[in-house]
């Protein structure tokens, strides 16, 4: 396999972007990525998208989106793994380049969620339709069950959950691309309306529109496009049981553990080698479970990591410096690519007020459903 680098990035602001269509979101992010690398061609495009068919009634995104990019003819297709679709697109592009199949490939993600009223129902299609959605459960509900199991096992409290939101909003306030670039107080989080007990509105990531794109090429060709390539050291993809009821331990995201183990093995690194991480905080409890499953904190200590500042900017292992899904926004298919972009900016030293000093190695973890799929990528700056 060839070493692979990211040489260009582009993303839209995340938010309720009423004036922009799915195709225009993609074109904006993809054009920015091409310009940033001074690239005028592509060999392939992989588009992470969870559910354009349900959100805007549009399937067949590959040809549609390269057509609008002015690149008819380029190999293109959509990849899907619910909210991990972006991460899966990145992995697909990584393999395409690493294998020698193509030399300049785009991994993109896009989701247009505000064109439909039925967002909760569409997202629930990432759960088991026959065993879960049938009984009226929602995604906040599934993660609420995980939260209660974590509380039962580790003594995690509603305040612990709330500190995750406070921390991520503090980070997001420094991110001009974030949907909610504003801080929230602990009291505001704990007083926000109940969605699925114990998860309140401010424990939940929002409904968002947005797109993100990165350009990949072999590391030994990277200098054609940038002075500061960021190498993808490893990619780990894993699955867990689709139905939450079938997990051995409902408080443990075992697919995240497996995807991390695969990535660390491939890179020859350990969690202690990471200088920062973007993790899939679709709900506050997800960040707590993910930092434990990734090995970034000791098992059972995820609950206090945000409160003590261990995972905050300036802490031992800053997590979600972008603001995470909570504050930056969560256009589901775009999230995995946006995470990679935060890593690229950090490892290039271009993250401005969010910069983690001396950051050279970091990971991004993107998750689908109630944790039934997970993708981990490890990045290294040059």
């Amino acid at each position, binding site marked *: 396999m060839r070493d692979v680098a990211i040489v260009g990035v582009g993303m839209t602001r995340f938010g309720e972007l009423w004036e922009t269509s799915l195709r225009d979101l993609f074109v904006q992010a993809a054009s920015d990525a091409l310009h940033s690398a001074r690239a005028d061609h592509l060999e392939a495009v992989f588009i992470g998208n969870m559910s354009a068919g349900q959100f805007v009634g549009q399937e067949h995104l590959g040809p549609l989106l390269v057509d609008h990019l002015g690149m008819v003819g380029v190999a293109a297709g959509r990849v899907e793994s619910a909210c991990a679709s972006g991460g899966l697109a990145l992995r697909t592009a990584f393999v395409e380049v690493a294998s020698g199949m193509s030399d300049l490939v785009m991994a993109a993600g896009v989701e247009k969620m505000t064109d439909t009223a039925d967002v909760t*129902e569409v997202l629930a299609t990432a759960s088991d339709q026959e065993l879960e959605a049938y009984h009226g459960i929602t995604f906040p509900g599934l993660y609420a069950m995980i939260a209660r199991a974590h509380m039962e096992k580790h003594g995690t409290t509603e305040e612990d959950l709330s500190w995750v939101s406070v921390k991520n909003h503090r980070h997001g306030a420094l991110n001009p691309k974030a949907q909610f670039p504003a801080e929230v107080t602990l009291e505001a989080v704990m007083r926000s309306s109940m969605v*699925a007990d114990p*998860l309140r509105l401010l424990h939940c990531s929002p409904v968002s529109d947005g797109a993100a794109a990165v350009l990949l090429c072999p590391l030994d060709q990277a200098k054609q496009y940038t002075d500061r390539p960021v190498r993808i050291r490893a990619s780990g993809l894993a699955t867990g049981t689709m139905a939450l009821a079938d997990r051995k331990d409902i408080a443990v995201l075992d697919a995240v553990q497996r995807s991390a183990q695969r990535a660390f093995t491939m890179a020859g690194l350990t969690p202690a080698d990471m200088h920062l991480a973007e993790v899939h905080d679709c709900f506050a409890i997800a960040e707590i479970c993910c930092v434990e499953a990734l090995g970034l904190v000791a098992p059972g200590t995820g609950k206090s990591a945000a409160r003590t500042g261990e995972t905050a900017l300036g802490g031992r292992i800053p997590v979600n410096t972008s603001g995470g899904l909570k504050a930056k926004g969560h256009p589901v298919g775009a999230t995995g690519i946006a995470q990679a972009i935060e890593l690229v900016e950090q490892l290039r030293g271009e993250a401005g007020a969010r910069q983690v000093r001396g950051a050279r190695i970091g990971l991004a973890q993107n998750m689908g459903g109630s944790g039934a799929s997970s993708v981990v990528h490890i990045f290294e700056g040059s």
Partner: protein
Amino acid sequence: MPSPRYWREVPSRFRLEAVRCRRCGKPSFPARTICPACRGTEFEQIGLTREGTVITSTVLHVAPDEFAMETPYAVAIVETPEGARLMAQLVDCEPSEVKPGLPVALEFRLIRQEGHGGILCYGHKAVPAGA
């Protein structure tokens, strides 16, 4: 949900039909072709006992449209004596009183009404044991 699909799921929804792997003994609900634990393909048909224990739960305050009139309602993962786990609404009690370890009975109930077709979709809901 189109009606052929609903009809196809009747054995598990109405009768809680499940299978137990002849090789490793793991129960699967609903029935599967391949055992998720050992990849065995020989099964014994079993029916789940209509009782169980709450493993974890939540109370939904924001629900999909077709369940919106029912909020707040509890949903739980219930384990039956056979070791099978299933998701079910927990009704006939204060939603806030649902806790892990709560013994429940599984009762045949109306679950939802299918879109504009109006087909009534049944299944099982949990109620506190002895309620």
